């Protein structure tokens, strides 16, 4: 190959999703039936096939991603997680003191579990024949998953956006593709700006209620009536508002912020997710899922993936052929499944 001049522009590479709802529906329904028939045992294989479908249909620069998770390892992790979860819930119901015996070690181990989860996901992902990996240390995990949540609590959530930035920094600065490191430059201020808008949207109905209260305060009866009506309307409106408006806004803005400031060696990324499109897709998906009693779910997942993937571009700084790998490592599935079952989603 001829050496290229240093300033040669490298064409941007668009991410694209090639899957279809119909194809995924067949995988999804078979996964579901086999999971039910095997009383959940198949769910580990179902998860691998589901992720493989989405990874293999995500392409950039003439190559698709792949997922290599081992179903047996996932199953083992799931069994441990289910046993722990049942022990905890059972104990909580009948013997709250016993629940502490289950909960305290799990809580102390949680940062480790979450780090395992990050490692598992990346180690079992590949592109162009090279694996990704996560090499964050345990001290960092205890920082972002234990110290920071406590600080957020003590600060009455005021430090929340800062925690989010620290979390993303831990995740992205320790991610590797082959031996090439990811890095993120997003500052704390950018996170605070996004959360300020979120807080504004969330507070709007409360302010509206306060204004109404001011106008009704002279008439005790209509005040009481008005307040109980406001309370009745406010609660569902806040929840639906969060799901339909706030969440898409948060997901879109965070995805854009994170990926627009993330680099992989000399390469950059661009993310152009629109909160409005995400909200539209989310709301229409929800309606169709309800109308079809859930059968639309796989189509909805593909529709969302197609949009989110299509909003990403890779901005190569040099040729894309130069990533290499020297070392290889194996990770077990234990942490990921535990994290998943304890209902912790660090996808945001």
């Amino acid at each position, binding site marked *: 190959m001829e050496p290229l001049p240093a300033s040669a522009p490298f064409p941007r590479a668009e991410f694209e999703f*090639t*899957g*279809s709802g119909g*194809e*995924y*529906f*067949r*995988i999804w*329904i*078979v996964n*579901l*039936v*086999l999971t*039910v*028939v095997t009383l959940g045992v198949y769910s580990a*294989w179902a998860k691998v*096939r589901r992720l*493989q*479908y989405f990874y*293999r*249909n995500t392409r950039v*620069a*003439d*190559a*698709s991603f*792949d997922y290599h998770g081992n179903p047996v390892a996932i199953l083992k992790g799931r069994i441990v997680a289910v046993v722990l979860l049942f022990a905890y819930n059972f104990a909580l*119901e*009948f*013997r709250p003191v016993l629940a502490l015996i289950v909960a305290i070690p799990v809580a102390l181990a949680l940062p480790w579990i979450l780090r395992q989860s990050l490692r598992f996901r990346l180690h079992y992902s590949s*592109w*162009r*024949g*090279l694996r990704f990996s996560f090499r964050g240390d345990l001290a960092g995990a205890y920082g972002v998953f234990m110290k920071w949540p406590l600080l957020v609590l003590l600060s009455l959530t005021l430090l929340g956006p800062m925690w989010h930035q620290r979390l993303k920094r831990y995740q992205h600065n320790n991610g590797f*593709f*082959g031996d090439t490191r990811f890095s993120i430059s997003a500052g704390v201020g950018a996170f605070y700006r996004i959360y300020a808008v979120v807080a504004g949207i969330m507070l709007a109905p409360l302010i509206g209620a306060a204004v109404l209260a001011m106008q009704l305060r002279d008439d005790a009866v209509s005040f009481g009536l008005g307040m109980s009506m406001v309370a009745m309307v406010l609660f569902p409106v806040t*929840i639906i508002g969060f799901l339909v408006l706030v969440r898409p806004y948060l997901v879109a803005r965070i995805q854009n912020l994170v990926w627009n400031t993330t680099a992989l060696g000399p390469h950059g990324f661009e993310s152009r997710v629109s909160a409005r499109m995400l909200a539209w897709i989310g709301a229409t998906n*929800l309606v169709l*899922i309800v109308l079809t009693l*859930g*059968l639309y779910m796989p189509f909805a997942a593909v529709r969302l993936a197609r949009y989110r993937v299509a909003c990403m571009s890779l901005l190569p700084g040099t040729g*894309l*052929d*130069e*990533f*290499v*790998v020297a070392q290889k490592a194996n990770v077990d599935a234990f942490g990921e499944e535990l994290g998943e079952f304890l*209902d912790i*989603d660090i996808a945001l």
Partner: protein
Amino acid sequence: MTAPLEAAYFDGRSSARRAVKLHLEPPGTLRLTGEGVERIEPLSQVEITEPMGTAPRRLVFADGAVCEVPSQPGLDAFLAGAGHAESAVVRIQSRWRWAIASVLALVLLVLGGYRYGLPWAAAQIAERLPQSLVASLSNQSLRALEQLLFEPTALPVERREAIAQAFARMRPPDEGHVAHEVLFRSAPAMGANALALPSGIIVVTDELVELAGSDAEILAVLTHELGHVHERHGLRLMVESSIVGIVLAWYLGDVSSIAAGVPAALLQARYSREHERAADDYAARMLQVNGMAPALLADMLEKLDASHRGGKMKEGESDYLSSHPATRERIRALRGAR
């Protein structure tokens, strides 16, 4: 021999993409040529990812090198000819008629599981819950009821003791003793009623004692409640709604774990019909064993029904969602019991 397929080759050590031609040479040899790649491998030495719709397939070599090739019929035919069998799951996933059959199978599984599997599993689990847990659970429920509904009883202590002792003297219809304790509470909001907690605590309201024409009728109601305790209906309901809640939450994902509780509560109403019938059956047998008429319970049911309807008896009213469904049917059965 078929025309070579366009493919991409990655050596597993760098991300360099090399365009190659994949020659499929029957019976089972793969040959890669192009851009500095010249590789011949027997199919048996290559790991092949399963087909998934239009997603590309990967041929993974023992040294970690990968060949990515678009999914296509030519490749499928070659692999089939070389004796490479896809798993049964892959074959099922690739056909629409299997997908439709899966939907039907799922509906049948869910309905069958709900109708037969769920009560069976709940009964098995309820049977195995340790008594100490049952007691602590029942005490929690009782405390909640005391706060929400109950007030101290206004009945004189002699009357209460007379009823409780008369009930304690009655023999259960089956072998073994069902531990129980009768409590009296006033419950203006609930009216005439009796309820059993899984640990054997039976609460009778003052209103029910006043409604009854005789102590024998009160004892008849107590035998019915003891039937619920004996059959562990309360525990079974609790386990059933927990299972339904878990399954719904899992199926609906995080979309609405809040909403999952609502259908679970509604779906339960159907079960109480069968449970009431079983408790009636137990009561009838217990009354007979003690030389009393099952019709006593029927009389009491009529009075309860009337008192909760505000005195009106309307024929053919739908009782589907009430907690004591199909009362008339039950009364008829008790009157018919020999």
